[in-house]
């Protein structure tokens, strides 16, 4: 059963087995506006929790994406190069960024579940 967790930087990570799929939330894509470019890490790269490892850009803004957990990138969403608008249309579906083979699932314990994240977004006004 897949479980989705959220960070305060408005990323989501959906865990299936020891692999987590990572993207940005509906709230994040609304804040960014039209996404024009996504720079995703190459498969094989090892990232540490909190490391800036992807970039998402709109016309007027660029945001770093931080790894919500440590691990090795096993796949990145190559389709985003041609259709970055997927991030706007389906941020939690076709607009995923990359998949991470998690080094330590325990690192996810501090992240928010869906209800907590919704409350967090509400608190932002």
């Amino acid at each position, binding site marked *: 059963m897949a479980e989705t967790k959220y960070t305060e930087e408005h990323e989501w990570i959906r865990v299936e087995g020891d692999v987590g799929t990572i993207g940005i939330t509906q709230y994040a894509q609304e804040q960014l506006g*039209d996404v*024009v*470019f996504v720079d995703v890490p190459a498969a094989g790269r090892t990232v540490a929790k909190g490391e800036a490892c992807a970039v998402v*850009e*709109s*016309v007027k803004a660029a945001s770093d994406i931080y790894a919500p957990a440590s691990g090795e990138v096993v796949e990145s969403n190559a389709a985003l190069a041609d259709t*970055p*608008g997927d991030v706007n249309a389906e941020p939690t579906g076709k607009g995923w960024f990359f998949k991470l083979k998690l080094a330590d699932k325990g690192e996810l314990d501090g992240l928010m579940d869906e209800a907590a994240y919704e409350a967090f977004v509400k608190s932002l006004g």
Partner: protein
Amino acid sequence: MVQSLDRSQGRAGSVSAGSVNTHGTYTGNRALQIEEPLIFEMGQAGRCGVDLPEPPKVKERLNGLRRKGEIGLPGLSEPQVVQHFTRLSQKNYAIDMGVYPLGSCTMKHNPRINEKVARLAGIGDLHPLQPVSTVQGALELIDGLAHWLKTLTGMPAVAMSPAAGAHGEMCGMMAIAAALEAKGERAQRRTVLAPESAHGTNPATAAALGFVVKPIPANDRGRVDLAALKAALGPDVAAIMLTNPNTCGLFESEIVEISKAVHEAGAYFYCDGANFNAIVGRVRPGDLGIDCMHINLHKTFSTPHGGGGPGAGPVVLSAALAPYAPYPWIVKDGDTWRVAEDGGALKALGVDGLPLGRLKAFHGQMGMFTRALAYIMSHGADGLRQVAEDAVLNANYVMAALKDVMSPAFEGPCMHEALFDDSFLKDTGVSTLDFAKAMIDEGYHPMTMYFPLVVHGAMLIEPTESVAKEDLDQFIGALRSLTAKAKTGTAAEDFKAAPLYAPRRRLDETLAARKPVLRWKPSNNPPGGDPLKQAAE
């Protein structure tokens, strides 16, 4: 090389009968607004805009590396070239056309005498590496400008070679790094403080030099929070980078205390001189305790912006930083001007210095020096003081005349620019961007928008001293009219459609960034001739 002469669009699929009907003309032109193709869509092999003689026959010495294929440049005759670029020019707004209130950019009048003297053969037609004995007047000119800059700022030295303001920033911060290294403190002092309202170049420059940038908050008066600054100062701090007057158009009233605190902490004070035009002749930055400041000659001293350069960014330096000024150094040796381009030359002239290196080939932006000096000499010491006063007066007049209908970001007098936030547009459905685009239809270039970042929906208006009162009155009237229209609450759609009367309506920046087309290619032109004719049929 390209046959189709498509005067309306050029891009496959972009022409529709609808857009022709919008114009209602066969050509797609609208009187003086003439649609202009790219040169690559107009050229014909066999045409040329120059006449050059047949080259004498010689033995080729190109190491067998002669270019094989064609380059692909279009051929046009001289009248076609003149018409093409003239038509393009007519799609631009410019200072020469009217009020250009772009805050933080200082769009002041660009006198034509500056252009004329820069083109004198004895100035404009000189090689930078001619024997120094044959360019004594050029070196005297550079030193003459340097003297003005040092005297107006109250600083002992100036590095002339940086090519633009950002380049000057790099120069100044390198000089600070060099001074720290000489004191053995470079490894320890890694932090640079910059206010949240700083120009983006400040953090970019500091980061390039390996410094860690730490933002300093502003207080509710739009100035640096002195207490927060003092708390941030410590043995790890290399410098503060501070714009004064700041990007909110306000003078940092506690600047003397700031510089004292910075120096007591063993750090240096980099002043971003982008807004020197507001205080020239009334305040010497040297009296405020700064260590270095770049001067954008295109802002304060009227060298033309030229559609985005070239600029020039000389940096004035305090006695503490002067030894580190980059090469070249122009030195007077008796009656003769010398150029020191290396350490040996400095030594031979008996000059002490530890130059940080070299930042640019040759001696700097001579053409800009010439223009700036012509402007400075035209104004003189008396006129430059009046420049600052009139610039500040115009900005405060705009502020006073609009403060009841727009929302000033801060209380009190401003310097050379008036800053508003977007609270007066609340609940109107009109954004800062929409409001600015509507100004275009009124015949004005918009003000600076969304900068500084510390003010919501910022609108930064800098009229400069070059605008007559009657023109300012019309400008104010136009903004009041737009404000009233926005506040009806029913005009949002009209604002979002603006501009209607410009050579182009709003452009799709998302498309441009998602599918970058950064050059013309033959495949951009659809085969099969003239889509406009097809549409007309």
